[in-house]
């Protein structure tokens, strides 16, 4: 079992923390994990991304060059990374800020969730990325959602702990939206 997740979006969207959340939860769940950010001048461009590897075996290379899953929080990220997703891989994107009209091919599956809108509804636009994380957890079942919620306590610094509830909510919303879409029989394109 090997999941190589690429999370990507704008600088302020909490991409790196969301990746750490996944890694922390994976570790707590007994998986081998690795997290690696994009770093350096790319940040000037206002984009951020990170790769998270979750595996039941020791991880050789932590670089995520061909993700099995892409969580894309904005249009540039979706455009740039969707073509790099492995055949049969999963793409979950923030349909509040991005659209995908073209074909994907190679059996890749695509799911759009209005993460930003959902986060605004929850009351904190910064938790939007966890809507996608929740969806990823629900669709892959790689880690119990509870583990991910517990990991919030470790990953968020103490002065951010008042945001735990909003983040948990985002995870739940993402999970249920994803399951609903799949349950509704909406084929993941």
């Amino acid at each position, binding site marked *: 079992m090997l999941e190589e997740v690429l999370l990507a979006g704008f600088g302020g969207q909490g991409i790196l923390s969301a990746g*750490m959340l996944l*890694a*922390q939860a994976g*570790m707590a769940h007994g998986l*081998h*994990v*690795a*997290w*690696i*950010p994009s*770093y*350096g*001048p790319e940040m000037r461009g206002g984009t951020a991304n990170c790769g998270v590897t979750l595996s039941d075996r020791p*991880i*050789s*290379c*932590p*670089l995520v*060059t061909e993700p099995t899953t892409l969580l894309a929080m904005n249009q540039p990220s979706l455009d740039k990374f969707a073509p790099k997703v492995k055949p049969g891989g999963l793409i979950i994107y923030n349909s509040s800020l991005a659209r995908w009209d073209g074909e994907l091919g190679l059996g890749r599956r695509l799911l759009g969730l209005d993460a930003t809108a959902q986060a605004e509804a929850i009351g904190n636009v910064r938790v939007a990325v966890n809507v996608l994380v929740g969806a990823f957890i629900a669709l892959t079942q790689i880690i119990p959602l509870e583990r991910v919620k517990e990991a919030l306590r*470790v990953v968020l610094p103490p002065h951010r702990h008042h945001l735990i509830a909003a983040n948990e909510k985002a995870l739940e919303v993402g999970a249920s939206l994803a399951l609903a879409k799949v349950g509704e029989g909406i084929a993941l394109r």
Partner: protein
Amino acid sequence: MPRVLMKGNEAFGEGAIRAGCRYFFGYPITPQSELPHYLARRLPEVGGVYLQAESEVAAINMVYGAAAAGARVMTSSSSPGISLMQEGISYLAGAELPCVIVNVMRGGPGLGNIAPAQSDYFQAVKGGGHGDYRLLCLAPSSVQEILDLMGLAFDLADKYRNPVMVLGDGILGQMMEPVELPPYSGELELPPKPWATTGTAGRGTRNIINSLYIEPEELEAVNLRLRAKYQRMEEEEKRWETYLLEEAELVLVAFGTMARVARAAVERLREEGIAAGLIRPITLYPFPDAPFHAAFSRARAFLVVEMNLGQMVEDVRLTVEGRCPVHFYGRTGGVVPTVAEVVNFAKEVWQKL
């Protein structure tokens, strides 16, 4: 043992603190900046000093001063910054001062880029500075090993009164992995350094830290004493790890980040029925020859894989000495060879055997 998720760059720092290092002098550079960021917070907590130097040249000379004063001290940088330290490193070796230098390597030459690379191997193991000196050089390949080898690095530096270089790369520095972190136990009892320049009070005699010996015979004697140290390192300090080497006919050789890719490649090759194995040097100097000698009986070829255009491969060739073909596969400029690439290249080598 509690496991925590830790960034490689932070593990360099925490490993140093747990080794009793209380002084850091350095100059920021990507991809190692989280190391100074971490120590800028952490050192004051343990009564240490974080000082941002005006340059890498100043940093390495501050290290020289702190080491002369008897402290466990370190600096860290990335490729261009390490190049700037070469004069200082030669001085540290010449004056026999212990310290630890971390190089989180990036793409070169010149400004290059900030992506991971291993193209400073020659500089680290052959002496990038002037003179007949050597650095003891350690190459961790996971965040856990970074933490562990930092302790070893400081111990070896003191044991040999020699600078120790720890080679990482952008991936090792930037990635987070779980590490086992025993509770922090505070100050260590470190062996005394009667040679340190701390003032003559209570000692009577003067201590001098120096690398100038105007008479060639004297300087040669110093160099021979250094060489005796290096020979002792060669006898006592070689470290390596092997994987499936016993039955291996195709032996991959890789260090650091590359060794992880190579290990996965070995697994994949085994799955495909090719008797592959891996030698992972942990000390790059002294270079571990024993596993090669162990491999000769079965090995039909060696395949060295590096994130450069062929550097460690020379030490492998010097070790193998023509007994067996030595092949090389490398990517450079910050490109990391994938497992698939290594497997494909290995298969080509295998088919031609």
